């Protein structure tokens, strides 16, 4: 854990050390971003295949051909695994966490730069494994992203042999990678803060990444053990999850969801963090109730460990467990209600600038609310009896994870792109991108809510076996067309992202007139981040302070009402 190199303020000379095996958190962050966007292509393409099959069963899918029921199971498994473990986490934690935490707290790098590099390359290996698993004999894992045993446990049930083993290895490696990454986040934010950067002056993004890191590293352990058990069941003939050998399938469900639910917040909190950085800047208004939000975040993080069994209400677990877990689950809506209300209050009374970043932040907030309220139906054990395992669940978790991952993530890209690459993105393309994303996303999942409420089970290869699903087919067609629209709607983003790197307008150090420390250095920041270590004098969100000479006061501004010229 030798940080000496990182502090020697000299970028390494060789190309390899500078761009490939770099220990500079900014380069590593860009590596994470690139990896996650590349994996998002796979995730998106699987979504396209799945949706096409559901709308027009067993037809030739343009660009692929027909898919069989076994391919379909593999596709949904890969879609879930890739999107959550290899897109959302690298995007929000690996990418933005790595880039922002040191910059926002005024550090020159992570606490353990080499560990940071190792984390990324472990994730890279894990991604390669999951991709490789799609091409092994027997096909990729096909037991769903939750890999419920015994379906995942015994090859005879799926015909999948190495695909599932590689899935386990890839996911385990991914866990190890983010475990080290999370430790790095924690130590960095607790130990490397610039003079004057007290905990209560940290931008909310840092708080969110911290909470996510703690929640992750405390929840993942049992599933690591579970993954090892599953692997031994498949390779050494043990029977941890096989009833015929004295094991118990429900054990896997418990171990999985003990991690699986906190994992949702591991992804959600950084997404909120991004929105909470973007909203005040473009409302020119302080975040509403900073400490209140920090406490709600910590409360949500803590509660996230007490709710996992709500994924198992009808799983056959002891029914007496249901009510306690309903209570905790529905209670968790309180801290999130505080966060959402406070976000609205942050915009309220502001002077709103509708930049692409702001559109995505607002759109994310608006759509996340749908995910939030529909969660209550599933959190109540009683209504979950009917809704569990239907498209209602599918729509619900897409309405929670998509807003934080993509609306939040895109908001972050449009907002921090100037800082990352030193150039501005094109606002017109950005707004077109938002319009497509917002409209088509809702057009996919609102129909799916309806089919879910009619009792449409998820993970069906095709539905012609069910008479009561026949009227639902048109809704599936709408969802599929919208999916294609959503995917095509990302082209403006891709073009914008690539072209702006070369033709974008040169970015000022602080183009948005924001207060937080990352804007107090050049765009892009030099190796070592700050010419001289910054000193922090004030809170991160002092916008439109009455009597101030301008509507923003950087955290580095020493005297009241006088802003540094460090920016511009």
């Amino acid at each position, binding site marked *: 854990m030798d940080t000496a190199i990182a502090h020697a303020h000299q970028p390494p000379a060789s190309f390899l050390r500078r761009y490939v095996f770099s220990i500079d958190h900014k380069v590593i962050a860009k590596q994470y971003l690139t990896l996650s966007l590349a994996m998002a292509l796979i995730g998106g393409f699987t979504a396209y295949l799945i949706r096409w099959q559901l709308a027009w069963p067993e037809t030739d899918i343009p660009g692929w051909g027909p898919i069989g029921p076994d391919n379909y199971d593999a596709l949904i498994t890969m879609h879930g695994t890739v999107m959550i473990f290899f897109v959302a986490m690298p995007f929000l934690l690996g990418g933005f966490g790595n880039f922002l935490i040191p910059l926002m707290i005024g550090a020159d790098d992570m606490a353990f730069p080499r560990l940071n590099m190792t984390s990324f390359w472990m994730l890279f290996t894990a991604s390669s494994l999951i991709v490789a698993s799609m091409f092994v004999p027997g096909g990729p894992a096909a037991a769903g992203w939750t890999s419920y045993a015994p379906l995942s446990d015994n090859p005879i049930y799926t015909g999948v042999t190495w695909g599932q083993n590689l899935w386990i290895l890839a996911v385990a490696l991914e866990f190890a990678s983010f475990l080290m990454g999370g430790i790095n986040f924690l130590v960095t934010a607790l130990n490397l803060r610039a003079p004057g950067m007290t905990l209560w002056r940290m931008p909310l993004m840092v708080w969110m990444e911290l909470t996510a890191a703690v929640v992750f590293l*405390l929840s993942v352990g049992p599933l690591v053990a579970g993954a090892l058990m599953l692997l031994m069941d498949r390779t050494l003939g043990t029977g941890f999850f096989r009833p015929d050998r004295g094991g118990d399938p429900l*054990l896997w469900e418990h171990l999985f969801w003990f991690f699986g639910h906190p994992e949702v917040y591991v992804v959600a909190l950084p997404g909120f963090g991004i929105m909470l950085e973007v909203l005040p800047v473009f409302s020119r208004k302080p975040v509403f109730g900073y400490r209140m939000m920090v406490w709600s975040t910590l409360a949500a993080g803590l509660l996230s460990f*007490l709710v996992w*069994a709500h994924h198992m209400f009808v799983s056959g677990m*002891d029914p007496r467990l249901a009510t306690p877990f309903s209570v905790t689950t529905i209670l968790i809506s309180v801290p999130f209600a505080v966060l959402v209300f406070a976000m609205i209050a942050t915009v309220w009374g502001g002077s709103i600038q509708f930049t692409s970043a702001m559109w995505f932040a607002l759109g994310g907030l608006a759509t996340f609310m749908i995910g939030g309220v529909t969660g209550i139906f599933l959190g109540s054990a009683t209504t979950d009896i009917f809704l569990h395992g239907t498209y209602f669940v599918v729509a619900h978790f897409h309405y929670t994870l998509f807003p934080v991952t993509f609306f939040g993530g895109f908001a972050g890209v449009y907002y921090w792109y100037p800082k990352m690459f030193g150039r501005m993105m094109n606002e017109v393309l950005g707004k077109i991108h938002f319009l497509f994303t917002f409209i088509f996303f809702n057009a996919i999942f609102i129909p799916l809510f309806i089919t879910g409420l009619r009792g449409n089970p998820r993970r069906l290869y095709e539905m012609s076996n069910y008479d009561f699903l026949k009227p639902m087919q048109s809704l599936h067609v709408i969802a599929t067309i919208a999916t294609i629209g959503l995917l095509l709607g990302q082209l403006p983003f891709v073009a914008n992202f690539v072209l702006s790197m070369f033709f974008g307008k040169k970015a000022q150090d602080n183009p948005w007139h924001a207060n937080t420390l990352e804007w107090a250095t050049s765009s892009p920041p030099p190796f070592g981040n700050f010419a001289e270590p910054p000193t922090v004098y004030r809170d991160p969100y002092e916008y439109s302070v009455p009597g101030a000479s301008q509507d923003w006061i950087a955290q580095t501004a020493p005297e009241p009402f006088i802003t540094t010229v460090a920016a511009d």
Partner: protein
Amino acid sequence: MSSTTEHSDFDYVLIWVWLVALLGAGTLAFLLPIGKGAALAVIFGIAMVKASLVVRDYMHLKSERLLIYVIAALPLILALGLALVLIPDIVYHR
């Protein structure tokens, strides 16, 4: 740094003697013809003591500040909670 530097090697060896003695006692409890329940109680009681000795003196928890206690306590509580919730499903299902 923590105040561990005052420790003399002798203190550490003393702890080790304790650990070995307890190991012997635990094994003895296993071998002696006493009731299974009692034996288990003794054995795991001793294991607890041994573990706490290592944590307290070799990992210097006794001279650490609060944050480390928090870091160590959180997972213990969570793991215990997980096990408790598993009881009805694993132990008491027919």
